[in-house]
């Protein structure tokens, strides 16, 4: 078992990933070193430290500069990056990582287990969003020698959960720059030093970030690109123009408008695809505030789900980019997806019957009651869905008033002030349900924590399933527990996952070896090259 994995890793690093990627268009051409790759970013997070902020907007830049212990391989399984091998004790409480030798930080200092220990204890466990949750039972990281880090947990930690989570939540920053400082205000947060294939050069606020080739990268003869430039273009029309004129070669994660994505699909110069974003599935959501009397009745929540024609919405509003969700675990998550059908098919008659049964008959003017809807504007499709919900619920006698707020205001209103009846936004799935999905349903999140259960809804059975699954070491039983959990929350419906979607990247066809792993936009791009 252990031997075969080691062999596989050795094989992959010896050949270089370029050779390990057969079947990609243009694989027949030999990679040509050199060139500048320009990337569009629609938003700016003002932080370049992935060990402090878990967000694709941060990974797109920093994953080229700072490396994680592991990343996903082409088949979606974790492969070693800074860790070369790993092993868990049978009780699941100790996980040992062997670290790669001869790796140096960009400032020349050697990378050792002390860096892993410091980053895990001081950043992941204390500061990183989702990391604090994941590592809450991490007691210590032992470093018997510079090439070994032993993670000790108070409760069993499933190895497959830890490895999948560490692809996003496992970036290592240098201890010698952070130790003894206020990590939140460390200058390295905006001028990062890492071990990756590219070195940070310059960050101009609101304009661009530049990184250049790291000549001392630990993988021989990589990377191919000379430079990567990330340009912040917030206006979507301007971004489309930049893509079409060739000023930028890649616009990742739905950076362009849905209409332009649809239009560029038929443009032979570009590849518009969800390939390489499989690990970044997301859902359009509908959250119910069950403190509201009408919504505390599960029949009303189900009636609302039955009243919305999701197929029509996806086909006509989203240009077919998505499908109805079957629950909070997306079908792209093969390790956990329990299968099944969308739980609430469009059926207006049934919706009306459920509302009548719950005692909310149509009153004067055919109206049953009214609801305040707060859209959390993660993307341009959120106001579209808000309008569609308003239109659909109007048909069954529920008047919906949309409350328009900027994203910060909407997050506060929903997650801190609980001042909403229904809300709609995005749920992002990150490889394992325990990373950022079960918190949407588990009770006990502090008031104000965004994207957690703030619905006034609690179920002991669901809480128990979530806790048991997070500590279950056997992968088959773990998958079974999550299947039970999906059934339970689909039935109770505190949050309805309306659609299941994937991000679309627009890539110029000059870019080679692109999108060859399931989280490519957030990977290191060491083997990416440009065809002239």
């Amino acid at each position: 078992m252990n031997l075969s994995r080691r062999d596989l890793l050795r094989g992959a690093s010896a050949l270089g990933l370029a050779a390990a990627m057969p079947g990609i268009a243009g694989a027949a051409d030999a990679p040509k070193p050199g060139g500048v790759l320009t990337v569009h970013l629609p938003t700016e997070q003002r932080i370049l430290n992935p060990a402090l902020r878990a967000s694709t907007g941060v990974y797109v830049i920093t994953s080229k500069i700072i490396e994680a212990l592991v990343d996903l391989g082409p088949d979606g399984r974790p492969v070693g990056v800074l860790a070369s091998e790993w092993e868990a004790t049978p009780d699941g409480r100790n996980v040992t990582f062997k670290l790669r030798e001869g790796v140096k930080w960009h400032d020349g200092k050697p990378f050792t287990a002390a860096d892993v220990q410091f980053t895990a204890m001081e950043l992941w466990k204390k500061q990183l969003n989702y990391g604090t949750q994941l590592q809450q039972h991490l007691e210590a990281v032992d470093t018997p020698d510079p090439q070994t880090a032993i993670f000790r947990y108070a409760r069993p930690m499933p190895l497959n959960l830890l490895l999948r989570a560490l692809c996003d939540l496992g970036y290592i920053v240098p201890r010698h720059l952070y130790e003894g400082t206020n990590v939140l205000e460390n200058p390295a947060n905006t001028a990062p030093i890492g071990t990756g294939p590219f070195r940070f050069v310059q960050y101009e606020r609101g304009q661009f970030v530049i990184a250049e080739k790291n000549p001392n990268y630990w993988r021989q003869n990589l990377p191919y690109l000379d430079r990567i430039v990330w340009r912040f273009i917030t206006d979507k029309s301007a971004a489309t123009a930049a893509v079409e004129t060739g000023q930028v070669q890649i616009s990742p994660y739905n950076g362009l408008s849905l209409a332009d994505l649809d239009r560029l699909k038929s443009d032979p110069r570009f590849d518009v695809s969800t390939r390489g974003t499989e690990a970044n599935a997301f859902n359009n959501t509908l959250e119910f505030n069950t403190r509201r009397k009408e919504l505390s009745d599960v029949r009303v929540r189900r009636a609302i789900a039955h009243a919305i024609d999701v197929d029509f919405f996806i086909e006509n509003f989203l240009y077919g980019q998505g499908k109805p969700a079957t629950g909070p675990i997306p079908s792209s998550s093969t390790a956990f997806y329990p299968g099944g059908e969308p739980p609430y098919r469009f059926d207006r008659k049934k919706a009306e019957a459920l509302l009548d049964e719950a005692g909310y008959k149509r009153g004067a003017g055919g109206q049953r009651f009214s609801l305040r809807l707060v859209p959390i504007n993660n993307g341009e499709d959120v106001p579209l869905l808000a309008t569609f919900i308003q239109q659909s619920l109007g048909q069954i006698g529920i008047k919906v008033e949309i409350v328009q707020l900027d994203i910060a205001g909407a997050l506060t209103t929903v997650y801190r002030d609980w001042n909403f009846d229904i809300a709609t936004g995005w749920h992002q799935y990150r490889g394992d349900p325990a990373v950022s999905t079960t918190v949407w349903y588990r009770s006990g999140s502090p008031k104000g924590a965004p994207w957690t259960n703030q619905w006034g809804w609690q179920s002991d059975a669901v809480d128990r399933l979530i806790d048991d699954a997070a500590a279950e070491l056997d992968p088959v039983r773990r998958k079974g527990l999550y299947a039970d959990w999906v059934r339970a929350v689909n039935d109770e419906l505190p949050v309805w996952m309306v659609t299941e979607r994937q991000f679309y990247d627009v890539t110029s066809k000059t870019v080679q070896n692109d999108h060859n792993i399931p989280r490519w936009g957030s990977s290191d791009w060491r083997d990416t090259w440009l065809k002239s």
Partner: protein
Amino acid sequence: MDFLRRYLASPPAVIGLVLLALVLAMAASADLLFPRDPLGLAGRPLQWPLANPRFWLGTDNMGRDIAAQVFHGARISLLIALVSTALAIVIGVVVGAVAGFYGGIVDDVLMRVTEAFQILPNFLLLLVLVAVFGSTLTTVTIAIGIVSWPASARLTRAEFLSLRNRDFVAACRGLGMGDARLIFAEILPNALPPVIVYAGVIMAVAILLESALAFLSLSDPNVPSWGNLIGAGRSVLRTQWYVSAIPGVAILVTVLAVSLVGQGLNDALNPRLRRR
């Protein structure tokens, strides 16, 4: 009669009046021609104008009938324009009249307040007000009124400064008239014509301000306004430009009509232009 004849003698003023009547007719007939909820789902989104006989101006990217929204939107735009202009004029006239009539320290205080409003770009102030008080139809209308009054205050004050020492005012004082009556019954009617003309400008700007707010998705999404439609069409501008262009034309026509009428009133009321 004389006034009406002078007004009708100017072709642009007549065109403005006709256009304005057209917009009013649209607003009045909206319920008759489009009885369904203009924000309801009408059909497949993004049908081109004239492609489907049911939607002769097409549908927007949320599947709503554009023609219905343009007609119902005329009501909202006119409502916002009229109410916020009335508000701006009332505040402006009261402040300007009191400042101009009393002068001295009252004038200084009121004019410094007016200037405090004037030095802020009015759209930025509007954004702040909407961000703080939320974006319902009522708050948006009041907020537009609040950012629009300073100019009419200065105009009224200037008129009052020149009128307050005239003989007829002195005569009224001699008759023992109180300040309130002097201001509102005697001086104000003489000071009003330029302010009324200026109301046309405020009205046109109010329509544009609401549209700009809606373009930034900060206006009330629960009413069918022209700006909301333009804002919604922004994301499909490259392919389905008509979603933004049609309400854009409606705004253009309305603002043009209000400006032409305002200009016509100015020409008709201005005694110096009488003999031209």
